[in-house]
């Protein structure tokens, strides 16, 4: 029969406790089994500041992040040659955009799609791409960050991981990012749930208005 002694029993108990703690701490208390989930949790906790970067938008205008001072900014990251996630991401962004009451647009909140492929996404390309999603280029802007160093700082701060592959495409994680009036990231929203995202944003805007 099974040979037992107290040491082996104790060892078994220790192993179970160790395994439980390993999984508990390794998944932030059984909440994050993927690095993406852990990343979003961490971002919400850390609330990083939007780094000082310079944009060049689809109209060829150049400005820094201070352009959006005192406005919420609803941000997505994309590249226009993308045929998979980005169009879906932008379509969903359009749905959120449509749901935001007109009075807030451009005044209290600006939508901003940032390209992480500055070589190919010139202002002309972005100007064309913008029309596919009925972006007006003003309250919803599309811009690139020409300086690679600045771009990397931003991607790093917001935990956007971009992997170039052999065919000139990128694999990347996607989400809606909400930056508040002071330039702090306050929320990371699931881009697959535009209705929920719109609700969250409208609530925040209403609260601000009430103050």
């Amino acid at each position, binding site marked *: 029969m099974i040979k037992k002694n107290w040491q*082996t029993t104790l060892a078994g108990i220790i*192993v179970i406790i160790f395994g439980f703690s390993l999984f508990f701490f390794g998944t932030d208390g059984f909440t994050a089994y993927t690095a993406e989930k852990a990343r979003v949790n961490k971002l919400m906790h850390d609330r990083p500041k939007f780094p000082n970067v310079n944009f060049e938008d689809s109209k060829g205008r150049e400005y820094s992040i201070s352009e959006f001072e005192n406005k919420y900014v609803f941000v997505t990251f994309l590249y226009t040659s993308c045929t998979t996630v980005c169009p879906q991401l932008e379509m969903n962004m359009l749905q959120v955009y449509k749901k935001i009451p007109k009075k807030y647009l451009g005044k209290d909140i600006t939508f901003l799609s940032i390209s992480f492929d500055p070589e190919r996404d010139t202002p002309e390309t972005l100007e064309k791409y913008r029309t596919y999603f009925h972006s007006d280029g003003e309250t919803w802007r599309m811009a690139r960050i020409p300086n690679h160093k600045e771009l990397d700082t931003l991607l790093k701060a917001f935990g956007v991981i971009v992997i170039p592959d052999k065919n000139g495409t990128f694999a990347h994680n996607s989400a809606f990012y909400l930056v508040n009036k002071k330039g702090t990231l306050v929320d990371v929203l699931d881009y697959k749930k535009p209705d929920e995202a719109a609700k969250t944003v409208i609530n925040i805007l209403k609260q601000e208005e009430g103050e």
Partner: protein
Amino acid sequence: MTQLLVGLFMIIFLALPPVAKIMESVMIIHMHMQMPMLIIAGFLIAKFFQERYPGFFEKWNRNGLPGIMLFIIIVSFWTLPRTMDEALNEAGMEIFKFISLPLLAGIPLRDSWKRLGKIGRNVVIILFTILFFVMGWLYVDAPVQLCNNYLVIDQIILGWGFLTTAICFVIYLGYILFVDPSKYE
């Protein structure tokens, strides 16, 4: 002694930055080659510890259960999408991978395997068959990119790696169930 040296050499070789980098650049090689090789290294090293401290294993792992549980826990931990990502992004996790797989999975596996009876061994294999089917299905079928460091296509390849391994387990289990080796001896 030879086994100890081979095991140690394997760990050092696998930990060489260029070797580790190449292996980790492909998801399936990372999980289905580098990680098992680390376990094998521990398996080889185990003999040294068993000969040196026979009392320890005899006392604390008499029926093999604590050891095999530790093995299962460590291996399952490293099949999570998150731990793979973190091993690539965080030095601490990478070091933990190189320590935990040989010491906490390889060594206990070797010591426990001979202590477990036939039934115990088959239960372990059945458990891993189920785990591998579930993980395979997860990686093949997941609509989203589970690991930030790997492409979806890598993920699907890894999923099929899990599924084919699980199928091999099933074939083995079928073999021991239906074939009586003593007939052929």
